[in-house]
């Protein structure tokens, strides 16, 4: 992987869903995200945010156009290769946290090492370090259901950074949090960003969007810089 290459490079990406009627959710999107960028994406529902997230996260393929992730042309990869690339390059954070309710906090974080090929002997120290970093070193053996919303989202962030990704994709990360904890979580994201991680936050919240260095609006499948 070329470290000089942009982390994300979308060139004329179009994603259409065969109809009838045919729906073009993304229309000729061009987007470049460099290492260390902090980007927010805003837009009304139905504007194509989900589709963009799917494409960025390698969970969907563009119908037309090129997508380079970390310099790798993803269009030529098969499903297993895309899954591997996704595991090692992208960390996801979701609105609903998505922690497994019957597993400990530590197990939830370790889940990220299963599919990314982190060597077995490194798994435990890395998970502990990640939890320490998000300030939850004292909650490792807790069940997620006993944690507050802010703590849960910090566990999810720890899980997202486990495989040392280049890009964090956060989908409405503060949607289920109150103002204070959402500020704490955003502070955590910004610390990670300061360490050189590229950060993409999809949000409705103008305040959250406003904290980003760059903000883009997506409307009717078209992207515009703000």
């Amino acid at each position, binding site marked *: *992987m*070329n470290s000089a290459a942009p982390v994300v490079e979308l060139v004329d990406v179009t994603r259409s869903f065969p109809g009838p009627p045919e729906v073009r959710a993304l229309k000729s999107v061009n987007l470049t995200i460099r290492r260390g960028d902090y980007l927010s994406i805003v837009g009304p529902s139905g504007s194509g945010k*989900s589709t963009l*997230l*799917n494409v960025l*996260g390698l*969970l*969907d393929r563009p119908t037309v156009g090129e997508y380079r992730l970390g*310099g*790798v*042309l993803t269009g*030529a*990869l*098969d*499903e*297993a*290769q895309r*899954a*591997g*690339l*996704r*595991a*090692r390059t992208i960390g*996801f954070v*979701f*609105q*609903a946290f*998505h922690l*497994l309710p*019957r*597993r400990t906090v530590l*197990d939830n974080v370790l*889940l*990220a090492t*299963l*599919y*990314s*090929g*982190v*060597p*077995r002997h490194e798994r435990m120290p890395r998970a502990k370090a990640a939890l320490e970093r998000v300030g939850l070193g004292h909650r490792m053996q807790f069940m997620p259901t006993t944690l507050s919303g802010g703590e849960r989202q910090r566990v999810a962030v720890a*899980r997202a950074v486990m*495989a040392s990704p280049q890009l964090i994709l956060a*989908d409405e990360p503060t949607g289920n949090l109150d103002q204070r904890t959402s500020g704490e979580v955003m502070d955590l994201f910004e610390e990670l960003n300061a360490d050189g991680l590229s950060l993409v936050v999809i949000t409705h919240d103008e305040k959250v969007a406003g904290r980003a260095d760059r903000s883009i609006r997506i409307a009717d499948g078209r992207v515009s810089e703000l």
Partner: protein
Amino acid sequence: MKLPALLRRRRSGAGAAAATAATVDATRRVDRFTSQDLLVEVSHGIGGHTGRLVMTTLGTVLGIASLVVTIGFAQTAAGQISAQFDAVAATQAVVKPGSARSANGDEVATSMLPWDAPDRVERLNGVERAGLIGEVPIGETAVTAVPINDPSAPEVLSPTLLATSEGLLEAVRGRATAGRYFDAGHDARADRVAVIGARAAEKLGINRVDSQPSIFVGERPYTVIGIVDDMERRPDLLDSVIVPIGTARADFGLQSASELQLRIAAGAGALVAEQAPIALDPNTPENFDVQAPRSGSELQESVQADINVVFLVLGLIALLAGGLGIANVTLLSVSERTGEIGLRRALGATRRDIASQFMVESVVIGLLGGLIGAAVGVFAVVAVALVQQWTPIIDLPMVLGAALLGAVVGLAAGAYPARKASRIEPIAALRAGV
């Protein structure tokens, strides 16, 4: 052991750039989702709902248990049946002259048993004792204890008159309850002696022989020298008056004996069946019909062949229900864990990883049911055998096979849910907020 490698079909990344190949190789490391990881995830998936797991395995447990019980009982019963046969039937053989249909439809004998038949066959290996039996045709002649012809008395059914050689009592395992059986001397001299079966003796009013009672066949008197009982193989002897063959030939002109009873050593059936006709008539041995016990293995095979089909079918139906139960619960679990599946996909799991996880979960549930069911079945067979004082006979490979059958049921049941799980769209699943 590299299970996921087996489950994951490798696809060639033809056309991919060199950089791509390097990326991909890096993810193909031994540390990515090994069978160990898979089993840990599976055990968490299964262990999460203990109560549900019990309900899920129940159908498979019942199905496998009923199969094991059915087959186990059939095997045990086969063992018991052949043990019973050993006691009575396996040591008894009968030779009869062959018969053919004559032009007017009557059965006629095609050969005669020689008078010295017992001597001939007793020289064979495996034959312990032999005796001839012939029915003496006496027509309307009455067999009575008193020679009085009373026209006013109601007519009574008189006992049949049989003629036998001296060895017959031992050949059919009878025993004399009073007096004795006649011997070769009585036979050779054509003495007018008779032995009566226990029931015939009761009818005739004879219960002791030390006073030398007589019975009359027509007007000829015969001295009763014994009363016999316990002839399991020829219970009709109990209702008969028996005279020596020599006497029957002299007094009634007996033409031939109707059958030869043999007491043989256990396991000698096949040998005796082959040799006895030759000993009786070396020129035309095919003219004799021999009923001899078959060897034990043949017998067991034939009994095992008619394993109770009904119970087998019931077991299979229970198994089918068990499989449907597993499929149902796995499907429920898939829809409950939609969010988890989306998360795993986002974390880099392939469709195949997801499918294999649910597949192995359902196989493990099936195997668990199979193991419990096989154990329950074995215990049931052993317990019943214990109560009945039988020897339990269970084929061990059959039990292991039944346990594995549970895993196969799980495999079949898991196929559809696993396929469904692997088709879940990650982002849709993750946004659903499960």
